[in-house]
């Protein structure tokens, strides 16, 4: 780097109570470069950048700008030194226009002139290749437009060093391309760009240098062109990681869950699911892609019996063909009813009729496994509560997005969380903790959950371990359908791959897996088919082996109008 140094961090240390978030970190930022700060969740990358942006103050160490030591006590100080940060969660006033948000808090001489501001905003936008309407209200904007406002807000204040915290997390591939294009223009203009990220492919695509942090320590800073994915991963994790998901081909995929014409309105009367139809097959992972909030959560919750549907059918195909009927989930009367509808045959293949038989004899015949189904059993899950679904013998597992708020009880230990699904078992009013405890110990061992014990509240465990407990429980239930919403969100690489492998193994045992994901690379590598959702509707189902990221991105974002034009 023969470029000019813009900012130096020397021995920066930051503690939160007993947690050491950054430990003597040294970092240089040059003019006219894109520096990627790479690290796993919780490694201290955002904390480090927050100290340049004036959000936190370092416990130890110095910050030098253009070779002079500075004290940055507030975001205002940071702006005075030409530093601006675009946070992961936007800080915009919804009711204001783009221009109003941009000038908010800037002290300028003279009267506020809307026309002047608009002109300046437009000038900045055209200089770097943004497209923005200064008069548009924030609440009318997409995530990508809001991000543009945030970036221009920082540029308007004259920032030379721009820090972007996970800027691509919520963008589609097309939007990411556009953002990177803009970043390159800014770089050419002499700005210093820092992007905080944990996505390797983006690092390799856009950055000039990569600084790797692990557990609060600065591991290395390398030139992007001299490195590769596996080397970066190794530095990030601290050991070699196998980045191959090892997708297998589906064997004998049969329809397991057939959803037709699902419509759902939320409490405010907003149409959140629009005429959704799809089939999930056994032995297959069906990915569900879409911009966050396109109805993915509502779709899974509808299937799980947690949402009151307006219309539609959810038919579960219970693979019972040529399997014996049992009294496990069916009463004697129900079995007799089904026999009346010619649903059964015997071991020799002849139709079964209970006509003229005594109850005791029927029971014996069924218990001996002599009464077999002719066809798969079809069960409609519409308007059933989660409890009713289970009582019908439908083994449907659901790993919800909100792990501690929905999937688990944070204050309870692993054992008590294992019971959530099964505590009703047993004849009397007292709990049986023996089996859940055995299950807890098995999951701790098999999935290598790091915990002081089965009694430790799961809230105290790390994100990855919490997720292992939840997924472990849902799999222990030997599901026929397994739904998982964002199961790797916030997890480190190792835990993420554990989850991918678990899902793949479930698929290989014949389970129909529904996987809601946000990382398109992962969706394409893990799934067999991908259903793309776009503002509550299905915009298409593609083969994950042949689809591209760009194709998915287009399907995620195109509006009704462009869809019609495309036809």
């Amino acid at each position, binding site marked *: 780097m023969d470029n000019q140094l813009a900012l130096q961090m020397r021995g920066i240390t930051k503690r939160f109570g007993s947690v050491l978030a950054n430990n003597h970190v040294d970092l240089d930022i040059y003019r006219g470069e894109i520096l990627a700060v790479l690290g796993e969740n919780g490694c201290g990358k955002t904390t480090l950048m927050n100290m340049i942006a004036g959000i936190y*103050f370092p*416990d130890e160490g110095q910050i030098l700008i253009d070779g002079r030591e500075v*004290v940055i006590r507030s975001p205002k100080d940071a702006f005075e030194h030409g530093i601006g940060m675009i946070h992961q969660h936007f800080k915009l006033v919804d009711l204001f226009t783009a221009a109003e948000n941009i000038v908010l808090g800037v002290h300028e001489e003279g009267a506020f002139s809307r026309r002047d501001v608009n002109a300046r905003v437009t000038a900045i936008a055209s200089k770097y290749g943004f497209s923005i309407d200064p008069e548009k209200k924030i609440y009318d904007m997409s995530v990508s437009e809001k991000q543009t406002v945030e970036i221009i807000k920082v540029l308007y204040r004259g920032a030379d060093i721009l820090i972007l915290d996970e800027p691509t997390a919520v963008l589609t591939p097309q939007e990411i391309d556009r953002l990177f294009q803009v970043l390159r223009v800014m770089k050419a203009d002499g700005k210093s760009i820092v992007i905080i990220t944990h996505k390797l492919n983006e690092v390799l695509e856009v950055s000039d240098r990569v600084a790797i942090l692990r557990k609060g320590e600065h591991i290395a800073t390398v030139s992007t062109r001299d490195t590769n994915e596996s080397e970066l991963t190794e530095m990030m994790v601290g050991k070699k990681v196998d980045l191959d998901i090892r997708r297998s081909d589906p064997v004998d995929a049969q329809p397991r869950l057939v959803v037709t014409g699902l419509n759902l309105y939320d409490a405010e009367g907003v149409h959140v699911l629009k005429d959704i139809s799809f089939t999930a097959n056994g032995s297959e992972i069906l990915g569900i892609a879409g911009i966050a909030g396109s109805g993915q959560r509502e779709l899974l919750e509808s299937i799980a019996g947690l949402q009151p549907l307006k219309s539609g059918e959810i038919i579960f195909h219970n693979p019972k063909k040529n399997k014996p009927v049992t009294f496990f989930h069916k009463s004697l009367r129900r079995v007799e009813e089904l026999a009346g509808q010619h649903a059964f045959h015997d071991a020799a293949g002849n139709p079964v009729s209970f006509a003229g038989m005594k109850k005791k004899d029927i029971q014996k015949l069924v218990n001996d496994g002599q009464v077999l189904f002719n066809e798969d059993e079809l069960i409609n899950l519409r308007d059933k509560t989660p409890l009713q679904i289970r009582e019908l013998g439908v083994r449907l597992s659901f790993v919800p997005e909100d792990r501690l*708020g929905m999937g688990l009880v*944070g204050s309870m230990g692993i054992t008590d969380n294992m019971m959530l699904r099964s505590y009703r078992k047993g004849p009397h*009013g007292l*709990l049986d903790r023996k089996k859940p405890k055995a299950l807890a110990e098995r999951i701790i061992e098999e999935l290598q959950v790091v915990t002081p014990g089965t009694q430790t509240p799961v809230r105290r465990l790390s994100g990855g371990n919490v997720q292992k407990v939840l997924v472990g429980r849902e799999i222990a239930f030997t599901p026929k359908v397994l739904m998982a919403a964002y199961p790797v969100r916030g997890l480190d690489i190792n835990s993420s791959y554990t989850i991918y492998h678990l899902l793949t193994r479930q698929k290989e045992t014949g389970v129909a897996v529904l996987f809601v994901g946000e990382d398109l690379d992962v969706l394409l590598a893990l799934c067999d088919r991908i259903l793309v959702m776009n503002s509550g509707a299905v915009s298409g189902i593609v083969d994950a082996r042949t689809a591209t990221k760009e194709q998915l991105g287009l399907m995620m974002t195109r509006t009704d109008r462009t869809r019609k034009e495309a036809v």
Partner: protein
Amino acid sequence: MTANHTPQVREPLVHLSRRTEFSPLRAWGVRLAALVLGLIVCGLAAFLLIEKLQQNPGRIGDFYYAFIKGSFGTSRKLWKMLKNLSILLCIALALTPAFRMRFWNTGAEGQTLMGVLGAIAVDFYFGGKWPEALLIPVMLLAAIIFGGVWGLIPALFKARFNTNETLFTLMMNYVATFVVSYFLVIWVPSGSSSLAKLKYGKLPSVVNDYFLIILIALLLTIGLYIYLNYSKHGYEISVVGESVRTAQYVGISVPKVILRTMLLSGMLCGLTGFLIGSGLDQTITTESVGGQGFTAIMVAWMGNFNPLMMILTSGLIQILNQGAAQISQDFNVSGALPDVIVGIMLFFVIGCEFFINYQLHFRRAQSKEAVR
């Protein structure tokens, strides 16, 4: 260059962090220390407030002795303390299932008073007409039904309209007081509005008048401990309390659990009302419960919603009350002094929980750590 480098923003002098691991033994050590510290401060306060003590500082020993004498001085005092402890404990136990569900029932006062009313109403109308063997069970039944209904009403509104249970149950206390006033006017038309002690419907005396009450409280404690920790109902209560969404996710009917738990809570208050009405007073005033419905909230909280711990916390409050009363008698001071003493003690006992849950970090201590 470094001359002007004096960062003005520093870590605050003290900052807090939640303790993750703290051995129970050490926690009890802290509690004991708080108790001792509280007693010392009480002694200092006594010097300021009690003239006799200022004139004769040697009597400080008597001051502390009175604390113990109040509850343990005579067997009568001991039984009285155990009786009071039991009534307070019973109300606190009644609140616990609701509190574990994060249903902040502040209506134990009214629910218990309704229990007293149920028992006394049956006694008033049927006392002497029915044999005691029939009268007393019917009094018990009426008390439980009255308390249960009083607990169920706010739960119905919570389950159906999501009303705020804290305000609702609080208001129900006043309604209960007025219902009692109404019946007193009917029963005692003479104008004094105080109902003379009824002759019938007294809980039989086993060993002494208090033993049965204490036994019932003990059985209730054990029963509730098992119910909350080892029964399916208790498990459902914990899940609903922690997260309604989780409860829905696993198919627990949240309204059903709310109604069932508040019915239980109210019924147990009603049972306590029966113990007061039939076991002790055989009469009723609007003050029959005497604020214990509110003290019980503190007992339950201090006991961490654990029935066994609540024996200790209700005991502590009772011993403090009787000790403070003894002091005001022995030193011939009246008025607010007992309240001051109880207040100081509770300040320390409750305050120490903060030091059990949190750790203080001082700036200087920390920079030393950093050097190491």
